[in-house]
C-alpha cells in the first residue's frame, strides 16, 4: 500500500499526456493543414523559399571558387601561364568569391527573415483564434479541462506549430539543395572521393535525428519533473504556516530533495545523450575528412586530381557539416509540428456548446419578472444524475428570493443556469416571457449578474476591476457602487486609492474584501437579476447588514436571488426555497418556515442557539 515515506506526489505522474507527444500525433493530415496555413502568406513563403534556393546555390559555389583559386596558383607554379595572367585570374576569382559571399549573406538573411516572419504571422493568427476559442467555450468545457492544459496548448503547442515553417520546411529545402546538388557536384568530379566526402552524411543525419527525438521525449519528461519540483516548492511557500506549525521543515526538505534529485538525474542523463551523440557526429566528420585527405592525397600524387580539387572537397565538407547536423532539428521540427498541431487543431475545432440560437433576439426587459418552470439539470458528463429536478418559482421586480440547503444540493447550479453558463436539460427559464435560450447571450449576461463566491481579480487597478463589466463607467458611479458594497473607505485607505493595482501581482485583498469588490462589480452592470452565490460568506454579519441596507434602493429595480448558508443573510427574503437533493422541499417566508418546524427551522436552531451536548469535554463541568 502506501509504505512510501514521502508522498508519492513528488514523483512525476507517468500518465502525463505530453510524454506521448514525443510521437507523431495524427501525422500527415495535421502537417498538411499546417502547411496550408503557411500559404495564407503566399508572398512571404515564396520569398523565403526562393531565397533559400539562391542561398544554397551560392553556398555551393564557394568551395568551387576556392578550389579554382588554389588550382590557379598551382598552374602558375608549374609555369604554364604568365604570372600576370594568373594574377588577373586570381583577382577575378577573389572578386567573384567576394560577390558570392555578400550575396549569400543577403539571401540567407532574407531566407531566415521571411521564414521567421511567416511563423510569427501564423503565431499571431493562431493566438487570436485560441483567445477567441477560450473566451467562447462554455463553462462545462472549462470545468473539464485543467487551465494548465490550456496554457500548454495555447503557448507550447502553438510554438511547435509556428516554428514549423522555419524549423522544418525551409530547413528541408535547404538541406535537400545542399546535399543533393553538393553530392552531384562531388560525385561527378570524382566518384570515390565524393563518396568518401559524403560518407559522414548518413551517419550524422541518422544520429542527429535519433538524438533529437530522444531529447524531445526526455525534455517533456524533464519539464514534468521540474514542474513537480516547482509544485513542491510553491506549496511549501504558500503553506509555510502549516509547515512551520507542524515543524515539518525536515520533511519538506526530503520532499524537495527527492523531486530535485529526480529532475537532476534526468537532466544529467540528457547531457549524456546529447554529448555522446554530438561527439560521435563530430568524430565521424573528422574521420571522413581524414579519409578524403589520405585517398585524395594519393590521388594527387598519382596525378588524378589537383590540389585545388582536394581543397574544394575539404571546404565543401566544412560547409556541409553544420547543415547536416541540423537534419535532426528538421526531423524534430516535423515531429513537433505534427503532435503539437494535432492538439492545437483539436482544440480549435471544438464545438461551442452554448451560443446564440440562429434566430436569437436581444433580450427586452419590461416587467422584470423571472420564472423557473419545471427546470431540471444534469451535467453533460453525468446525465443520469440530475442535479436539479422540476424547480419552479417566480420572482417579480423588487423581490428577493433566498435559496438555502445542504452542500451539494444544487443551489449554485441554479445560479449558473440563469445567465446560461450551462443550459437546462428540462423545463425553461424565462425573463419577461422570453426563454433565455432564444435571446442573445450578450444581452442576457448583461441583464443577469452572478456574484461568485470565489472572486477572480484581474491584475489591474481596483477601479478597472470594479468597472470590468462596464469599462466606460465614470468615477462617481464606481465610487457609488463601492460605497454600497462597504468598500469605499477601505479603498481610500490604500496607497493609491482606486488606482491601486490588485490581483496576482498587486496588493492582496482578504476574502471578505474580494467578495465586497465582486458585489460592487456586479452592481456596475445594472442587471435585472442579481444573484449572490454564497458571496457573503467571508464578510462579517454586521458589514453584510450594512451592505444590504445600502443596497435596498438598488434592489427595488431588480430581482435579487441570495444563496447562503448563514440564515441571517437571507431571513429577510420574500420567499425562501429550501433545496435538498435538487428539489424544493420547503418554501415560504422566514416566519412561515419557522412555524412549519421543518428542516429550515432545524438549521435555524443550529445556527442561532448554542446547541447542548456538543461542547468541549470540560463544558459539562462549568
Amino acid at each position, binding site marked *: 500500500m502506501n509504505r512510501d515515506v514521502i508522498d508519492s506526489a513528488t514523483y512525476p505522474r507517468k500518465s502525463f499526456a505530453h510524454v506521448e507527444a514525443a510521437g507523431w500525433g495524427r501525422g500527415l493530415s495535421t502537417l498538411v493543414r499546417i502547411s496550408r496555413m503557411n500559404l495564407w502568406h503566399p508572398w512571404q513563403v515564396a520569398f523565403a523559399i526562393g531565397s533559400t534556393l539562391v542561398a544554397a546555390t551560392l553556398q555551393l559555389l564557394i568551395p568551387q571558387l576556392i578550389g579554382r583559386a588554389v588550382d590557379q596558383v598551382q598552374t602558375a607554379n608549374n609555369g604554364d601561364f604568365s604570372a600576370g595572367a594568373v594574377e588577373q585570374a586570381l583577382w577575378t576569382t577573389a572578386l567573384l568569391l567576394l560577390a558570392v559571399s555578400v550575396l549569400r549573406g543577403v539571401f540567407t538573411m532574407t531566407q531566415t527573415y521571411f521564414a521567421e516572419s511567416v511563423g510569427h504571422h501564423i503565431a499571431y493568427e493562431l493566438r487570436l483564434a485560441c483567445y477567441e476559442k477560450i473566451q467562447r467555450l462554455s463553462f462545462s468545457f472549462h470545468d473539464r479541462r485543467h487551465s494548465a492544459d490550456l496554457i500548454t496548448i495555447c503557448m507550447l503547442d502553438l510554438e511547435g506549430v509556428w516554428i514549423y515553417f522555419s524549423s522544418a520546411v525551409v530547413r528541408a529545402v535547404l538541406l535537400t539543395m545542399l546535399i543533393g546538388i553538393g553530392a552531384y557536384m562531388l560525385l561527378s568530379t570524382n566518384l570515390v572521393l565524393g563518396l568518401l566526402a559524403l560518407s559522414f552524411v548518413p551517419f550524422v543525419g541518422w544520429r542527429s535525428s535519433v538524438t533529437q527525438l530522444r531529447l524531445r521525449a526526455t525534455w517533456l519528461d524533464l519539464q514534468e519533473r521540474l514542474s513537480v519540483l516547482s509544485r513542491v516548492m510553491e*506549496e511549501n511557500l504558500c503553506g509555510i504556516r502549516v509547515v512551520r*506549525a507542524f515543524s515539518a521543515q525536515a520533511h519538506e526538505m526530503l520532499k524537495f530533495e527527492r523531486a530535485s534529485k529526480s529532475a537532476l538525474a534526468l537532466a544529467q542523463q540528457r547531457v549524456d545523450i546529447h554529448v555522446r551523440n554530438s561527439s560521435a557526429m563530430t568524430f565521424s566528420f573528422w574521420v571522413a575528412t581524414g579519409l578524403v585527405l589520405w585517398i585524395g592525397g594519393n590521388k594527387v600524387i598519382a596525378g588524378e586530381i589537383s590540389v585545388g580539387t582536394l581543397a574544394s572537397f575539404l571546404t565543401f565538407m566544412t560547409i556541409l557539416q553544420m547543415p547536416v547536423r541540423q537534419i535532426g532539428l528538421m526531423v524534430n521540427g516535423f515531429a513537433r509540428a505534427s503532435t503539437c498541431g494535432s492538439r492545437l487543431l483539436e482544440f480549435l475545432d471544438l464545438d461551442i456548446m452554448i451560443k446564440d440560437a440562429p434566430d436569437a433576439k436581444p433580450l427586452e426587459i419590461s416587467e422584470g419578472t423571472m420564472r423557473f418552470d419545471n427546470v431540471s439539470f444534469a451535467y453533460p458528463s453525468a446525465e443520469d444524475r440530475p442535479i436539479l429536478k422540476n424547480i419552479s418559482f417566480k420572482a417579480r421586480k423588487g423581490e428577493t428570493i433566498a435559496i438555502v440547503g445542504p452542500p451539494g444540493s444544487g443551489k449554485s447550479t441554479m445560479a449558473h443556469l440563469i445567465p446560461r453558463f450551462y443550459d437546462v436539460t428540462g423545463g425553461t427559464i424565462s425573463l419577461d416571457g422570453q426563454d433565455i435560450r432564444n435571446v442573445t447571450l450578450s444581452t442576457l*449576461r448583461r441583464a443577469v449578474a452572478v456574484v461568485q463566491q470565489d472572486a477572480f481579480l484581474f491584475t489591474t487597478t481596483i477601479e478597472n476591476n470594479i468597472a470590468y463589466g462596464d469599462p466606460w463607467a465614470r468615477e462617481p458611479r464606481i465610487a457609488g457602487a463601492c460605497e454600497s458594497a462597504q468598500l469605499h473607505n477601505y479603498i481610500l485607505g490604500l496607497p493609491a486609492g482606486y488606482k491601486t493595482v490588485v490581483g496576482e501581482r498587486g496588493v492582496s485583498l482578504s476574502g471578505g474584501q474580494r467578495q465586497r469588490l465582486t458585489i460592487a462589480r456586479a452592481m456596475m452592470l445594472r442587471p435585472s437579476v442579481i444573484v449572490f452565490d454564497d458571496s457573503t460568506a467571508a464578510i462579517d454579519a454586521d458589514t453584510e447588514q450594512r451592505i444590504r441596507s445600502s443596497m435596498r434602493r438598488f434592489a427595488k429595480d431588480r430581482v435579487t436571488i441570495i444563496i447562503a448558508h448563514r440564515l441571517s443573510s437571507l431571513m429577510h427574503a420574500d420567499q425562501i426555497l429550501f433545496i435538498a437533493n435538487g428539489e424544493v422541499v420547503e418554501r415560504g417566508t422566514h416566519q412561515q418556515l419557522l412555524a412549519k418546524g421543518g428542516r429550515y427551522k432545524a438549521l435555524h436552531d443550529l445556527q442561532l442557539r448554542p446547541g447542548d451536548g456538543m461542547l468541549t469535554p470540560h463544558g459539562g463541568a462549568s
Partner: protein
Amino acid sequence: MAHPGEVETERNDMRDFGTRPPRAVVGSHRIEEEIFGRAFDKNIVRRIWAFVGPYRAKLVISIAAVLIFAATQLLIPLIIRYAIEHGMRPGSDDRSALLAAAGAFLVTILLNFAASYTQDTVISKMAENVIFDIRRAMFAHLQKVSLSFMDRTEVGRLMSRLQGDVNSMHEFLQTSVLSVGDIALLLGIVSVMLWLDFRLGLLTLSVLPVLFIVRLFWLPHARDAFTTAQEFNSVANGALAEAIHGVRAVQSMDRQQVNFLLYDDKARASLKKHLIGDKYAQIMVPIVDSLMGLATAVVIVVGGSKVMNGRIDVGVMIVFLFYIQRFFDPIRSLTAQYSVMQRAMASGKRLTDVLDVEIEIHDKPDAKVLSPLMDGSVEFRNVTFGYDPNYPVLKNVSFRVNPGDTVALVGPTGSGKSSAMALLHRFYEVQHGQVLVGGHDVRDLTQESLGRQVAMVLQEPFLFTGTVFNNIRYHKTDATRDDVMNAAKAVGAHDFIMSLDGGYDATLGERGGNLSLGQCQLISFARALVADAKILILDEATANIDSYTEMLIQKALARVLEGRTGLVIAHRLATIRGADRIIVLQNGRVVESGNHDQLMAIGGLYSKLYNLNYASFNDIPDEEQIDITPQAGSQT
C-alpha cells in the same frame, strides 16, 4: 527601449473610444525586474564561486579539456597543410610524409573526440549540479527565515528567484568555461596565422577589428530589440493566461468582444516587435558573410601572389582559408557572452539577496528538547509584541492555561488573538516578557521539538498535492494506516473520505481542489490529531465553513481536545461557551477572563456582546478596518 506598457497608452486615443473603452485592460504589463546588471560584480561572482568550489577538480578537468579541444582544432588545418606541402608531390613515390600526416591526423581527431566529450559532459553536469545546489540552499534558507519575511514577500516573486534566476545562472556557468576555449582558439588562430606569414596574417586579421566594432555597436540595439520582443511576448501570454483563469468572470460580464480587441493589440504588438528583433538578428548575417568573403578574397589575391613568388607554399594558403572559416565563431560567442554575464549578475544579485535574508529566530546553542511528557501548560508573562515594534499588537499580556484545559480567546478583529497564538509557536519573537510552554521559555527550546508539541489548525485549510492518507499523516511518517483512519473517524471525515474515488489513496488536486472547504478543514483537523501534540491551537478553524460541516467539527472537537491543552480562537458561541476559561482581548490587552458564567456575572464586554445576541464575536461592530499591513492575512 520600448516598454510593453506603451501599448496601453496608444489605445487611449478617442477614435477608438467606441470599441476600446478607457478602463479596459487585459493582462498586466508590469515588468519590474532588471534583466541586465553590471557585466562583472566581484561580490556576486565570489558568492557563486562558493557553490562551484565543491566541483573544483571537475572544473580543472574541464578547462584542461577545453584547452586541448581548442589546440586540436588549431592543429587539424596545420596537419592538412603538412600533408599538402610534403606528402602530395604529384608523381612522387614517397608516401611516408602523407602517412605521417594521416597518423598525426588520426591521433589529433581522437584527442579532439576525447576532449570534446569530456568538456561537454563535465561542464554541463557541473553546471546542473551547481544550480541544483544553489536552489537547494535557497529553499533550505527559506525554511528558516522568519515568517515576517514570508508574510511580506509574494510567493510568485520567490518562485521566480528559485526558477528564472537560477536558470540564467545555469546559462552563465555553462558558457563561461566554453568562453575560455573560445579565447584560447581565437588567440591560437591569430598567433598561428601570424607565425605562418606575418604580413598575410595581419592583412587577413584586419577584418576582425571591423567585425568586433560592428558587433559592439550592433549588440546593445539588438539586445534591446530581443528583450523587447520577449517582453511583449510574455505580456501577450500573460493576457492569454488571464483569459484562461478568469474565463468565468469574462463570460459572466460579457467582456469577450472588448477583450478580444485588446488582446489583438497585444498580440499584434508582439508580432511587430518580433519582426523588429528578427531584422536586428538577420542584419548581422550579410555583414559577417561579407567580411568572411573579404578575408578569403585577400588570401586568394595576396596569398596567391606570394605563392607564385615562392614566398609561401600553397599549403599555407589553404591553412589560411580554413582558419578564416573558424575564427568568426569565437568572436560571435564571446560578444554574446557579455550579455549572458550581465544577465547572470542581475540574477545573481537577486539570488544572493534571498540567501542573505537574515534568520531572525535561531535555536540557542544549548536549546533544550521539549519532552512529549511535559505537562502541556501555557503561560504568557507580560508579553508585548508588535510586527512593527512601534505599534504593539499585544500589550503586557499575561495569562496561564493549565494542563488539559480548554481556553477560548475572543475579541474583535485585530485584538491580537492570532498574534498571541503565533507567539506560542515562536513564529515571531516577543519584544518584552516571556511565553512559556510546559514551564520552559519557548526561546530555550529547539523549534523542532516545540513544533511537535504544539499543533495548529488554521482558518484557511492548506492541503498538499498527494493522497488523503499522506495529507493526514503529513510529516509524521511513522503513523500507521490505523492511526490515520482513527484520526479521520474521530473528526468525522472518514465517511466522505471513503466516498472518494480511491478512499484514503485518492489523490487530491492542488490545494485540495476537488474537495469543499469544509472537507479540507476536516482533513486538516485529522492531520492535527495525528500529529499527537500536547497543545492544540484552533485559530478560527471553523470561520469559513458552512453550518453542516461546522456541526460535524463541533462534534469532533470534544474528541480532538481529549487529554490536550486547547487554545481556541472562535467566534461561534457554541464553541466559546463550553470552554474552561474565556479570555477577552481588546486592543492587545486582556480585559476580562473567566468562564462563561463568571463573565456573564461580571457584566463586562463579554456579557454585553453576548446579550446583544450576535451570532458570532467577529461581528462585533467596529470601524472599517483599514489594514493593508502584511500581517493582515494572519489576523482575521
